[in-house]
């Protein structure tokens, strides 16, 4: 009997706090439908790992070592990239390649936050790992922070996925702050540009991999797996593989990743001042990503005859397709005939590529 009750006496306040955090994540996933596929496993995992003498600790640690932290690199995030690549349709971007620049501008938050975290005293590698929250891309954040050996991976993951889920709350006020009503009313031509040929769609992932690989060799794994997934989708002869990558593979890895991240959510590691700082810095990263994307659009409007609705610049963060939807919805709120989805999706997918390149560059700089 004493053995059965022993566990009750070993429960600590910090463990209870982690259960509450886990419950909040599960609540956000179910009730608010915020990134449920990740927040729910992470929330449950946080409870699982923080039970006193939890028998799950060992197995979650093993899963972490197998899937994320092993001698072969970050296996699971990379495999997830195949699924993500297979899900992305680059047509809007190929129709209007100019949108690429917005994706690049919206990575400003990563580099700004890197400097800010460094200024706050974080070690450079940790600062870079925190900055990558601004990529708004979970697998990239996991891959980079693991590769750099950051000890804050739990907090970084929670911040990255939470803010991705909170895009509809974080971005609109920033966009409104940076734009005038007149700018938000700018209509964009939805008929501009010619649909890309099949050959272009096939060449695109190959050429992107080569270009990025030459500039940032450490980004090859990230961009290569993403583009491989896209090639499977676009080649037209591997439909069943493409479907498997989009659904079964992506779902399997997502379940695995979500619960495995909990290995870095132990109370003694997670409940620190650093975690609060990292969460605050993550918010900064998202804010400055949004700000930079919008500002680039405004800057381009100074020289362009065809005006760009600056709101689409905000979709350059790679929270796909949430950010594009937010911008489209804001456009409709201002003018119910202003359809920005085609453009915002184009910017959004360019953000996906840009965030992977930024992640790869950071790896290149710190290796």
């Amino acid at each position, binding site marked *: 009997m004493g053995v059965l009750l022993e566990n009750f006496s070993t429960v600590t306040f910090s463990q209870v706090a982690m259960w509450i955090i886990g419950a909040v994540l599960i609540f956000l996933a179910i009730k608010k439908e915020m990134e449920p596929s990740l927040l729910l496993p992470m929330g449950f995992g946080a409870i699982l790992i923080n039970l006193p003498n939890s028998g799950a600790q060992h197995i979650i640690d093993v899963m972490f070592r197998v899937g994320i932290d092993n001698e072969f690199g970050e296996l699971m995030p990379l495999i997830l990239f195949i699924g993500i690549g297979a899900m992305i349709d680059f047509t809007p*971007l*190929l129709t209007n*390649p*100019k949108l*690429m*620049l917005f*994706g*690049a*501008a919206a*990575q*400003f938050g*990563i*580099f*700004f936050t*890197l*400097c800010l*975290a*460094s*200024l*706050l*005293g*974080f*070690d*450079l590698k940790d*600062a*870079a790992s925190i900055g990558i929250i601004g990529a708004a891309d979970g697998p990239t954040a996991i891959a980079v922070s693991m590769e750099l050996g950051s000890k804050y991976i739990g907090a970084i993951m929670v911040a990255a996925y939470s803010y991705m889920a909170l895009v509809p709350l974080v971005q609109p006020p920033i966009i409104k702050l940076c734009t005038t009503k007149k700018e938000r009313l700018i209509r964009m031509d939805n008929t501009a540009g*010619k649909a*890309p*040929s099949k*050959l*272009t769609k096939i*060449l*695109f992932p190959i*050429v*992107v991999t080569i*270009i*990025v690989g030459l*500039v*940032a060799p450490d980004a090859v794994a990230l961009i290569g797996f993403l583009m491989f997934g896209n090639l499977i989708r676009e080649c037209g002869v591997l439909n069943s593989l493409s479907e498997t990558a989009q659904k079964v593979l992506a779902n399997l890895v997502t379940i695995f990743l979500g619960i495995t991240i909990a290995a870095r959510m132990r109370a003694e590691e997670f409940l620190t*001042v650093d975690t609060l700082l990292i969460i605050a810095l993550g918010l900064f990263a998202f804010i400055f990503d949004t700000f930079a994307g919008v500002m680039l659009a405004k800057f381009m409007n100074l020289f362009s005859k065809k005006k760009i609705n600056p709101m689409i610049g905000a979709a350059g963060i790679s929270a796909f397709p949430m950010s594009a939807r937010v911008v489209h919805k804001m456009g409709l709120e201002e003018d119910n005939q202003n359809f920005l989805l085609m453009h915002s999706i184009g910017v959004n997918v*360019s953000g996906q*590529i*840009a965030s992977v*390149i*930024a992640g790869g*560059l*950071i790896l290149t*700089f710190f290796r």
Partner: protein
Amino acid sequence: MNITPQLLGIFTDIYGSYDAMNIQRALLIALVGFITVIVVLACIALFIKFIAFIFAVIEKKNEKKVSTVITPIEHHSSPAQTSDVTLPETESQGELELIGVDEPTAAILMALVSYKTNIPLNRLAFRSIKLVEDE
């Protein structure tokens, strides 16, 4: 009053690792990294433009091989229809001679001409659409 040193001092107390070299390096990495991302994406955008240009050239060459002759006549003064009822912008009426062209192809061609010339279909009259084979 510059409070930065005091603020940094607080963080130094917390972390004990404030390092000016770190910040300089972070700034340099941020600058180089951000510029590189922009340059790489600009290169990819240029590549897409280049591919699109090549396809446009190839398409033009193909168009020359088998071309159709269309003779749109725009009536600026009065609509194409003769009746008093004004037709919707997407509709038209009248006689059209098709030579070697089927109806769906003719419909597509008329829609294309309307779109490219920005003249609504109810203001365009087509006398004939004829298939011309290259010699």
